[in-house]
């Protein structure tokens, strides 16, 4: 049985259609990503699913509950990190955890939670005096304070430094191995690629693709790019290969775009012609390329 079922979800703000006919399921124990440009409707979608906003159409079931009418029951079982939120400025880290734990039916060990998210040194610092990354870690920690079966992380690693991002990814994987289902909203392609089992790509309020990261790339049949350099003047024979779509050349630097096993074919052909470039390499299409192809625009960095 699915943990989340969203069916024809629709949400409008006055005349703006923020989410338009979006449907997807999330399976138990998966890390499900929602990817899309700014204003695509990602936050609106996950907040409707959490019962924090009221949809205008469609049906949502989360852990067998209806978030619009059974929100209180649902919130005991889910964890949530919101994109825009705050705590009282003078509330200290440990006090915040203590407060939220008091309302949880199954609170986790508070010290362990602080240790896990590297907040021990900040435990008696006021929320207002935390750095952006420290606040983010506190919000992630608070999302886990009630031992949730399902967590929503809206912009998980916003404001985290590269090392903290990696660590956060590891922790999220660990949490998933503990059986928790994770819904992750993100702007970061590498995050989607490394962490998510499946990714929903949303654009302009609509679901434009839903697949595993590799499936998204493969489904679009995006070209790989093979690069090498050689002094050999005439390479026209390479363009005759069926898998090669195009070839460009700037002085010695050659760039070949092509589908499928283009690298192997180009390599063997080069060797057959007695050319053995030292810098032969291939760039396989990434989730970012898939994203660009799907939405036709670059994402915020």
């Amino acid at each position, binding site marked *: 049985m699915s943990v989340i079922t969203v069916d024809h979800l629709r949400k409008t703000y006055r005349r703006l259609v923020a989410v338009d006919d979006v449907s997807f399921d999330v399976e138990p124990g998966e890390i499900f990503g929602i990817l899309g440009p700014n204003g695509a409707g990602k936050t609106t979608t996950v907040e409707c699913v959490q019962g924090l906003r009221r949809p205008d159409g469609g049906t949502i079931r989360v852990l067998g509950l209806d978030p619009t009418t059974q929100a209180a029951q649902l*919130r*005991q079982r889910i964890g949530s990190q919101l994109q*825009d939120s*705050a705590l009282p400025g*003078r509330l200290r880290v440990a006090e915040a955890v203590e407060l939220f734990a008091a*309302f949880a039916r199954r609170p986790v060990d508070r010290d362990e939670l602080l240790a896990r998210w590297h907040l021990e040194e900040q435990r008696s610092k006021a929320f207002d005096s935390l750095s952006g990354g420290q606040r983010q870690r506190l919000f992630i920690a608070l999302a886990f304070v*009630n031992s949730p079966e399902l967590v929503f992380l809206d912009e998980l690693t916003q404001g985290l430094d590269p090392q903290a991002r990696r660590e956060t990814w590891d922790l999220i994987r660990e949490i998933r191995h503990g059986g928790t289902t994770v819904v992750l909203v993100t702007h970061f392609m590498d995050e989607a690629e490394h962490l998510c089992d499946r990714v929903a790509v949303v654009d302009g309020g609509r679901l434009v693709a839903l697949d595993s990261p590799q499936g998204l790339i493969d489904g679009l049949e995006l070209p790989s790019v093979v690069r090498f350099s050689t002094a050999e003047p005439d390479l026209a024979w390479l363009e005759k290969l069926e898998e090669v779509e195009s070839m460009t050349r700037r002085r010695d630097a050659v760039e070949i775009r092509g589908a499928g096993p283009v690298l192997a074919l180009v390599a063997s052909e080069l060797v057959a012609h007695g050319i053995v470039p030292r810098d032969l390499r291939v760039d396989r299409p990434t989730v970012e390329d898939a994203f660009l192809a799907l939405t036709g625009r670059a994402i915020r960095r």
Partner: protein
Amino acid sequence: MSGYLAMTRTEFRLFRREPFSVVFVLAFPLMMMMLLAAVFGNNQADAHKIQNGLLVWRGVTPADYYAAASAAVIVAAIGLMTLPITLAGYRERGILRRFKASSVPPRALIAGQLTLALATSLAGTLVMAVVARLAYHTTLPKDALGVAVALLVGAVAFGAIGLLLATVIRTSRSAQGIGLLLFFSLWLVSGTAPPRAVLPTGLRDVGGALPLAHLVTAVQNPWLGFGWSGADLAALAAYAVVAGVPALWLFHGE
């Protein structure tokens, strides 16, 4: 219950760390009491002064009159300013959403705020009574239980009004402006600044219907040994219901 306790403890901590709110809510009524008592004195001769056919000081000395009336001002300041400013700020900064998403129910927040309001009012009243006593030899509350009950009912009534303000005012900045305006308007016409007897008739009647005037009488009567004022307590309870029911409903619906 544990949630309520945790929330109340949190609100007390935050209040303690926010010196401005303490200063305004406690220091302003105290300062005005000191000023007015100094101006009008503590002479028995003034007790039976009559103006516009009314006892100006309700049959007690001006200092006694103001010591009791100023305790009511503390409650009004909390309800009309601290509460809406705090809650509107919570909404504005996304704190309410954060609470809601983590199963912190609005009623726990409201209960914590009311407890804080009541405790601050009681403590402030105690300070008021002691300072007035030391400075002007005023009477200490004759019926402390009666005063405490009046403060409780007053805190609920002004708490409800403050909550209603917090639901209709969207930002903490406008809550500051509107709260301050309401507070001073009430303060001027409720017998807490000039005694109501000296006000023009129309203003006196309007002021008399407003919650602060009821709270002033509800606090003064037991304080000065006139017994409990059932009518004023009932009026405050009515304010609590009329403001509180829509406020709770709106606050929950957010």
